[in-house]
């Protein structure tokens, strides 16, 4: 999988297709207050957000502003204290729900902030786990896991146990696992945080390619301003705790974006204004 595999027309076609239809994810008045031992913690103030099908959204904000909280609610892992979340045309949480309506979730890929690999499974079996739930036969699971491992640069490590891998390698296994069942919605919580700058760039390019090819809806959390500008259609800027949406920035560089887009003056301008808005927090 590389940028050169994509006929230039396809990207434009899928991009056009994306603009039709309703929201892929709709967040209305969603707030979250955690009940903790030391009293309630307000993590997210009432928030509205519409993610279009096939859109690439990046959540950017200082540590502790509720990015993980929001993402986990989108995946049905936490219930909002108030507000409604709708996936496609199916409600996931309607006001006051404490349990998600599971069938709304459809096919979902989630990259956690921690790799969350199962230490008793070898790399290939970790990657293939979502396929087991879908009852894909074993030989096909192996094949698809091998392909996916290849994509994240771990083709030689299929038979290793997670503890034999470095932190960055483990995170790449987790990314492969989130993608293996070709989910239509991909939620990623600082997926590349544990990677070195060069691998990170490479993974960013690969993720963009994958997204252009498959028309997934992606919501990605990051601390890196330049990563946000490189990847996003729209950057959702969250303010310091308690989190709320401070600004939404459209990024309209043409796709596929080469890494060198970072050298364009407009890129630098956006990065600069985001840095200013974050007040040096990120």
């Amino acid at each position, binding site marked *: 999988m590389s940028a050169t595999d994509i006929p230039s027309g396809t990207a434009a076609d899928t991009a056009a297709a994306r603009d039709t239809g309703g929201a892929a994810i709709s967040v209305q008045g969603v707030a979250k207050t955690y009940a903790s031992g030391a009293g309630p913690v307000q993590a997210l103030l009432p928030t509205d957000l519409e993610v279009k099908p096939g859109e690439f959204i990046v959540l950017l904000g200082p540590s502790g502003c509720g990015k993980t909280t929001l993402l986990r609610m989108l995946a049905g892992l936490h219930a909002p204290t108030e507000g409604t979340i709708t996936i496609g045309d199916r409600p996931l949480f309607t006001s006051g729900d404490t349990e998600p309506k599971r069938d709304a979730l459809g096919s979902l890929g989630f990259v956690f902030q921690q790799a*969350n690999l*199962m230490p008793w*499974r070898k790399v290939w079996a970790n990657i293939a786990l979502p396929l087991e739930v879908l009852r894909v036969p074993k030989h096909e699971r192996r094949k698809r896991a091998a392909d996916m491992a290849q994509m994240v640069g771990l083709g030689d490590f299929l*038979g290793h146990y997670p503890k034999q*891998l470095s932190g960055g390698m483990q995170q790449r296994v987790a990314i492969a696992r989130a993608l293996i069942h070709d989910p239509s919605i991909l939620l990623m919580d600082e997926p590349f945080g544990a990677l070195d700058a060069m691998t990170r760039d490479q993974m960013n390019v690969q993720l963009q390619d994958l997204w252009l090819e498959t028309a997934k809806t992606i919501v990605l959390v990051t601390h890196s301003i330049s990563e946000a500008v490189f990847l996003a259609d729209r950057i959702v800027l969250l303010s310091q705790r308690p989190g709320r949406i401070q600004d939404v920035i459209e990024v309209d560089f043409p796709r596929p974006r080469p890494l060198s887009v970072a050298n364009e003056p407009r890129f630098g301008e956006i990065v600069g204004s985001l840095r200013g808005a974050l007040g040096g927090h990120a």
Partner: protein
Amino acid sequence: MTATRPLTDETTSPVTPRRGSGSRILWITTPLILIAFLGLWKLYTVVSGVGELILPPPEKVGIALVQLLGDASVWQATYVTLYETVVGFALAAVVGIALGIVLGRARTLERILSPFLVATQVVPKVAIVPLLLLWFGFGLASKIFMAAIIAFFVMMQNTILGIRSIDQGHRDLMRVIRAPWWKRVISLDIPSSLPYVLTGVELGIVFAITGAIVGEYLGGDQGLGAMATVMLSALRTDQLFAVVIIMTLLGFLLYAIVAGVRRYAIPWHESSGRATAL
């Protein structure tokens, strides 16, 4: 990347293989230490002039051991002790692990019951042997219960720990991939708590054989424990030693079986020491 490639570890591991050379050295050190031990023992009996009744020299024990092994009654006694141990252990494992799973999930229940569970452990269990004899007679049943009572707690406790230690991140993962409950049990709950449960089982089998032998010491006329008391009253210290050696070997055998199961069942775990050997 071909799918048909065998997915074993032909690639070199980035982690140095652990314990590989460490276990090979045991084949040399263990016999050496044993020989040194026997030598010191012999030396002591010669130099100190201690009576054979108190400490027989090693070769006398060896002869007694060979003689005993030629005698059907020892095998009968070994069989009885093995039987009590295994049945008592199995009983304790079933009840202990089942109760551990329940208490591991139900925190409140565990908190309510914990004073009582601890109390049963604080009671010196040897002290209840007379009661067991009273209730279950001098036959095998009282020894089976003794073995079970001693082995039960550690297996329950480790199972509770195992269930509690299931990682929240892994639970979230299973939810996100929409795993049904049985898939979660098979792919998360069991493998995740298995190392703990198996640690309990390893300790449990050792505790069970102790329980069975203590029970035999204190009542009845069957098993290795009873045989040891007979030899004591006959003042055959050399044979007493030989019986203790047989008990030890039996314990070793049972432990080795359980440890082997553990190594096979959880090759990925630190405790198995051979992460890449599968």
